[in-house]
């Protein structure tokens, strides 16, 4: 049985990656808080994790070229979705900056949690190697 980093680290590395992507999308929403006609976006975190889990289980097809099509479950609907606004402004912008900022902060906290888990995995591996 070969020990690989992929198996040892579990889902946390994918979670961390997804959090970074989401932070990017939310930062873009906030940068465009005053752009007329801009539609706020967010990603379906559950779908992303599902995709990561599928690829980890070994049944998913790997994409080794940008031209390869995505064959995993839920590939038909994209990760990036448009937000349904509570009250869109007159200029067609759907960014609610307070709500977006809250989400960004929460995403940063979730990132920290994922990081903590990943770090503990590494600490565990180090301990196992040292035999402490």
């Amino acid at each position, binding site marked *: 049985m070969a020990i690989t980093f992929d198996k040892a680290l579990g889902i946390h590395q994918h979670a961390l990656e997804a959090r*970074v*992507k989401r*932070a*990017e*999308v939310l*930062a*873009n929403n*906030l*940068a*465009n*808080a*005053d*752009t*007329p006609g*801009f539609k706020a*976006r967010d990603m379906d975190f559950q779908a992303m994790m599902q995709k990561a889990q599928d690829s980890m289980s070994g049944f998913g097809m790997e994409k080794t070229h*940008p*031209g*390869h*099509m*995505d064959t995993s479950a839920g590939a038909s609907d*994209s*990760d*990036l979705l448009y937000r349904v606004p509570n009250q869109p402004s007159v200029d067609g912008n759907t960014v609610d*900056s307070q709500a977006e*900022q809250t989400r*960004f*902060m929460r995403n*940063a906290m979730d*990132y*920290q949690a994922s*990081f903590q888990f*990943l*770090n503990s995995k*590494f*600490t565990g591996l*180090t301990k196992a190697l040292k035999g402490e």
Partner: protein
Amino acid sequence: MSLGNIFDIAGSGMTAQSLRLNTTASNIANAETASSSTDTTYRARKPVFSAIQQSMLNPGQQAFGAQGSEDAGAGVRVEGIVESEAELQMRYEPNHPAANADGYVFYPNVNVVEEMADMMSSSRSFQMNVDIMNTAKSMMQRILTLGQQ
């Protein structure tokens, strides 16, 4: 790591907001600049914002099968600055040095109250982008400590 993109996005937001603050400053400074004809009168200036898409930055990488909705976006940019079409204020001031033959002077179409509100909005948005950048920075610093005891 795409955390670096957040710096670009927040940076573009800060650039756009500071330009908006610049136009506001210019408008307020020139709110009382009178002139003798409609052509030479100062008009309120407004920036036009538009969203940048990542596919716009590197069009070559837009591969087959990649939909536009996969694009996370890459911040905001200023398309240009437009002058307000609102009507100029015409005042009868025969003693004004710039008064025309009929004794009228033209004042800019700057709405000072609107400009003040714009100023508050842009400084808040600027602050928000700074916060984003700080958070991205601490996220990046944390990733550097991965695996340390």
